[in-house]
């Protein structure tokens, strides 16, 4: 009898494991199926959207009606956005689809810009028709590829393999090449090499990425000079040690430093990070992540400290606009003022610690890339005329002021700024000071922490 006990226990354990394993397997398959279905659905949505885009683009070329055009533009815009969103959720390596994503983003962005032009009754020129034709051809190719891929490869659990291959991290080259999904998208990416550079009025337009930097034309300073600027900016008495880190490149080329403040215990606390522009030696930004235990200054006193600091450092004509308070610090947005006109694009951000009024954050990168002396003409329409353009439902709170607001594509618009309210909600309404066009509406969110514009 005794000798059966052990085998019996083992047999029970084996059966138990088997049942458990089987259940695991079933469960895992359910998850896979669930995921696969999600991915299949996204893929179908993606195909559908790209098809709609192709048809709409061809219709646009032959359409002559403004009304019809706007419907087509917004349809393309919505579908491009949808397609890009679906594509970015599929488990395909990002490197393989950057150009397709860019194509879809720009397509949506471009058609949105065109829709705005269409509302202003600007007809399509030779160049725009040419662009539309090219975009149409790319959309057609993409649509064909997606279909072919769907017919040949997307059967059963292809996405599961896709997921697994990623997880295993052993991307053996042969398997990679045999992978139809990756391969197909690769082919399309290669074809996209000749994709034209689109220039138009939208945030993803090519020229936007370049930007402009009138303040940063000048002589290159040396690293020693930059180091001196760091000590000047922070105040010599506060600095213990300045260490060099790798320089910053990009929008603004900088010398980067790490500063150990005095009175800091070794190995404790955070260094102050500061970047000096290589051209002309401006302080591009500064971050000091020190802890603020107790806020003793009021926001108003904080703004006073910050304004004094800016004046001392040679930043004049900066006006504080809105503030945000968190973690014992006060963030203040300053904008440049020229001839009583606020330049919202020329932004300087200052963070003040509310325990002793020290500057713990500074960012002038926007200011440095956009600020220049503008020639400001008197507005073509009066305040009263501008005021009439505003919806009668909104109540105007006070006299408007003149300002320049940035557009999403680094352009600038000369506007009247009105503070308006509607049943307890507050808004800023911008009316073009030359044409009377309503250009932008911002909603003002006020709470105990400060003000936010969205």
């Amino acid at each position, binding site marked *: 009898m005794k000798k059966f006990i052990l085998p019996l226990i083992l047999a029970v354990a084996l059966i138990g494991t088997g049942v458990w394993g089987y259940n695991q397997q079933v469960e895992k398959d359910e998850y896979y199926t669930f995921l696969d279905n999600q991915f299949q659905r996204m893929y179908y949505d993606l195909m559908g959207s790209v098809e709609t885009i192709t048809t709409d683009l061809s219709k646009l070329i032959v359409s002559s009606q403004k009304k019809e055009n706007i419907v087509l533009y917004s349809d393309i815009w919505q579908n491009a956005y949808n397609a890009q969103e679906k594509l970015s*959720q599929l488990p395909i390596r990002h490197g393989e689809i950057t150009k397709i*994503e860019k194509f879809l983003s720009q397509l949506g962005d471009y058609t949105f810009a065109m829709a705005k032009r269409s509302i202003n009754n600007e007809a399509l020129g030779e160049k725009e028709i040419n662009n539309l034709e090219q975009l149409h051809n790319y959309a057609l190719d993409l649509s064909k590829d997606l279909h072919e891929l769907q017919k040949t490869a997307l059967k059963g659990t292809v996405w599961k393999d896709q997921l697994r291959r*990623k997880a295993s991290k052993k991307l053996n080259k042969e398997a990679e090449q045999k992978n139809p999904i990756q391969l197909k998208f690769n082919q399309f990416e290669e074809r996209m090499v000749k994709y034209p550079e689109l220039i138009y009025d939208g945030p993803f337009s090519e020229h936007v990425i370049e930007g402009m930097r009138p303040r940063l034309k000048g002589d290159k300073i040396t690293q020693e000079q930059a180091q001196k600027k760091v000590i000047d900016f922070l105040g010599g008495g506060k600095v213990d040690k300045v260490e060099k880190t790798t320089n910053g490149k*990009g929008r603004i080329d*900088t010398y980067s430093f790490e500063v150990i403040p005095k009175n800091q215990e070794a190995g404790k606390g955070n260094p102050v990070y500061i970047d000096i522009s290589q051209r002309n030696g401006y302080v591009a930004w500064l*971050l000091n992540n020190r802890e603020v235990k107790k806020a003793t200054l009021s926001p108003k006193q904080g703004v006073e400290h910050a304004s004094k600091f800016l004046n001392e450092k040679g930043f004049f004509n900066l006006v504080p606009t809105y503030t945000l308070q968190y*973690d014992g610090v006060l963030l203040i947005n300053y904008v440049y003022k020229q001839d009583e006109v606020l330049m919202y694009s020329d932004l300087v951000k200052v963070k003040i610690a509310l325990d002793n009024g020290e500057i713990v954050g500074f*960012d002038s990168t*926007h200011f440095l890339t956009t600020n220049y002396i503008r020639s400001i003409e008197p507005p073509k329409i009066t305040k009263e005329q501008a005021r009439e353009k505003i919806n009668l439902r909104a109540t105007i709170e006070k006299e408007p002021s003149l300002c320049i607001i940035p557009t999403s594509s680094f352009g600038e618009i000369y506007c009247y700024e009105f503070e308006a309210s*509607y049943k307890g909600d507050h808004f800023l309404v911008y009316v073009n000071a030359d044409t009377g066009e309503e250009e932008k509406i911002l909603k003002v969110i006020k709470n105990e922490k400060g003000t936010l514009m969205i």
Partner: protein
Amino acid sequence: MNRHKKLITILLIVFTFCTTVAIQTYLYVGSAQETLYWGSSGEKVKTVQNKLKQWGYYNGPIDSVYGGGTFEAVKAFQRKNGLAVDGVVGNETAKKLGLPIKDTTASTDYKPSNSSASRDDEINVLARAITGEARGEPYIGQVAVGAVVLNRTRHPSFPNTIAGVIYQPGAFTAVSDGQINAPVEESCIKAARDALNGWDPTGGCLYYWNPATATSKWIWSRTVEKKIGKHWFGN
């Protein structure tokens, strides 16, 4: 004593009832569209004059007084819009003018959405991604990781939202292996805030990788712009 209490209660109820009725009547009267005619004056007349001037029916002064000029302009407006031409701004004319008409049957009250909007969600998801990706990095490296996420939302080759970028399959290892759900570190919340408020130590970079552990061959084809802590940042 008991009676007294009862009386007070009854009186209170009656009082409340009366005030409610009174307030409601007041509101009702106050909200109905008043008719404007020759001789009226006030803010509403000004509104009508403004509208008519905008549309080119009226070219007199905006003086809030319903005079002959306004009368003629209203008539012209009514003629053009197929209304009874009487020079009086009643309900129909007011509707055509696009003036706020109080609907006496059923009106939905507009609720101010001032307080509901905040960036807390954005800060939260970004802080979680930073915790997962850059735990133990110097503070500036954490801000930099947050900045890369935000730079991606503004770039055409990536999704347009913070969540879209973070949860893009395969984009971040901390998302793939679930580390993003670990408890958020204090410094990472600060870093997320600084990144959202515009600080970008990378100068606009779109990628970063840890040269010691990066497995993707493709990532090595990127140009390195900046090295912070263990991470290399590039485009």
